[in-house]
């Protein structure tokens, strides 16, 4: 119950910001050259003034901008995200179709980045300033510094084309009629490369934080005491160090929720994944205002939700601030 109250309070506090973002983007996009009918015409590769005029009317673009904005906001109040001009159906259902793919991609990449970052960070900290540390730290930075699309393209060439181990793109086998566990396995093989590609960008950051936090915690008095008391090294790390080192990492997750979605735009393009990131790119280039604003709306909710979870985790991890949540 307390959780629910907290969640709704958070949401209410963010609503004005969210509204400003939506209105701001709406107005900003009015400045863009061309509208969704131009984008459609370009795609058809054949124009016709009569058809274009009909379509403008159809998409509600024949009225003034304030009226369009008013209509949009009025629908929004009724929790209606409007109609997608690209797909000709409600934005809400378009987004719902795409959301699972992106959520799965983001979540699995985040988990992979955290798990691998933590493990490597611990390893590096325990061998600080010796060759494993240098190797791991450098590798982390190299991954960070490699443009993700380049890494994605090269991994497709290697694992899908030369080795033939993994599918080169898509979310699942189409028309394969798979169900249950078989379908889950199929999706997993499709998602492996995109997940790794997206995770590598963030791996370095978690690695560095873990390493630094470990080094810091290891100098703390109570850890030294614990060591002196003869607790096993693994025990010390797990009981004290890890727990404290997790704090900054959790903070970072909250800050990076938005960045992850940005990274998804590129990764989804490379791997032909039908996710929100790719949809957002299409919405921008096709001037599909409703869809773009809908995605912003949903991703904002996502960021708010992630931050809520982060705060809750924070309270659990650090009893000192527990009372505030």
């Amino acid at each position, binding site marked *: 119950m307390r959780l629910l109250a907290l969640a709704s309070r958070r949401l209410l506090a963010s609503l004005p910001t969210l509204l400003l973002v939506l209105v701001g983007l709406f107005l*900003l996009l009015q400045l863009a050259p061309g509208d969704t009918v131009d984008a459609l015409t370009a795609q058809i590769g054949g124009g016709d003034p009569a058809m274009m005029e009909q379509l403008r009317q159809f998409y509600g673009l024949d009225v003034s901008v304030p009226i369009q904005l008013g209509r949009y906001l009025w629908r929004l109040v009724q929790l209606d995200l409007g109609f997608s001009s690209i797909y000709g159906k409600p934005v809400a259902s378009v987004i719902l179709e795409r959301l699972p793919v992106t959520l799965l991609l983001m979540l699995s990449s985040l988990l992979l980045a955290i798990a691998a970052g933590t493990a490597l960070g611990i390893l590096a900290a325990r061998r600080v300033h010796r060759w494993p540390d240098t190797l791991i730290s450098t590798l982390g930075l190299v991954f960070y510094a490699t443009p993700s699309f380049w890494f994605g393209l090269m991994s497709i060439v290697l694992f899908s084309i030369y080795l033939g181990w993994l599918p080169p793109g898509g979310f699942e086998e189409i028309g394969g009629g798979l169900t249950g566990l078989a379908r889950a396995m199929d999706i997993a093989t499709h998602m492996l490369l995109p997940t790794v590609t997206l995770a590598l960008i963030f791996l370095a950051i978690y690695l560095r934080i873990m390493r630094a936090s470990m080094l810091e915690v290891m100098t703390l008095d109570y850890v030294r005491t614990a060591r002196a008391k003869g607790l096993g090294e693994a025990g010390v790390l797990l009981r004290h160090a890890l727990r404290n080192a997790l704090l900054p990492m959790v903070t970072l997750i909250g800050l990076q929720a938005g960045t992850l979605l940005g990274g998804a735009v590129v990764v989804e393009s490379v791997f032909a994944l039908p996710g929100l990131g790719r949809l957002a790119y299409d919405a921008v280039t096709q001037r599909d205002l409703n869809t773009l604003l809908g995605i912003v709306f949903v991703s904002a909710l996502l960021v708010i939700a992630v931050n809520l979870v982060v705060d809750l985790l924070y309270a659990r991890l650090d009893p000192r601030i527990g009372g505030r949540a």
Partner: protein
Amino acid sequence: MSTLGRFLRNPAGLIGLLLLLLVVAAALSAPSLYPDDPLRLAGRPLQWPLTNPRFPLGTDNTGRDIAAEILHGARISLAIGLVATLLSVTIGIAVGALAGYYGGWVDDALMRIAEMFQILPNFLLLLVLVAVFGSEIGTVTLAIGLVSWPASARLTRAEFLTLRQREFIEACRTLGMRDAQIILREILPNALPPVIVYAGVVMATAILLESALAFLNLSDPNVPSWGNLIGAGRAVLRVQWYVSAIPGLAILVTVLAVSLVGQGLNDALNPRLRGRP
């Protein structure tokens, strides 16, 4: 030991600095080594590196000399990185300082704005800005700077929040110093180190963001940026992989250099790590 001394004793920072100097040297040597326009048609397209002595790194799929593009591209990438970072960090410091120093409604309002930018995935906002204002290189650089300031604002604000409580600040106030003086002369110098370290991250991100835009064909085609070359090389990735591999390597080296320097600075400036083995 001085900060500089500590920095130079750190192997990671030192390597980073050397790599960065290499990139700067490349940028500086471009006009004298390759005085011609690097975008001109230099020869038959898609000549492999080391096959024609005129083109040590080969030619790309539009017949440009890759070596010339890489050297001139160093100027572009560094410029994008520096200008975007300067813009982003300046906005960030200004917003963070005002919010942290004054608190209250100023803080509320400014952090609301920062929140607006953080709610919106930054790459998405970048796509919108480029779609609206065009992909001229100046616009792209400004857009990159504009979407990446909130983190440095939060960082500055946090520093200001702790520093303004300190006794010496109270002392300044009783001495009758004006707010501007206190902010600029007293607090800012103490608040800067973590922001400077973070600037390394911003710069690396800026260079990567431009290359991601170029990958989606949304960067300025009139400048020889590394991102553009990767974007062009994508079409011939499977056979003439060098076209995108060479600028990819250049980006990697630059981002690595900037990150290592940032890491070195962090270690040198972080008081809690001082005196550690």
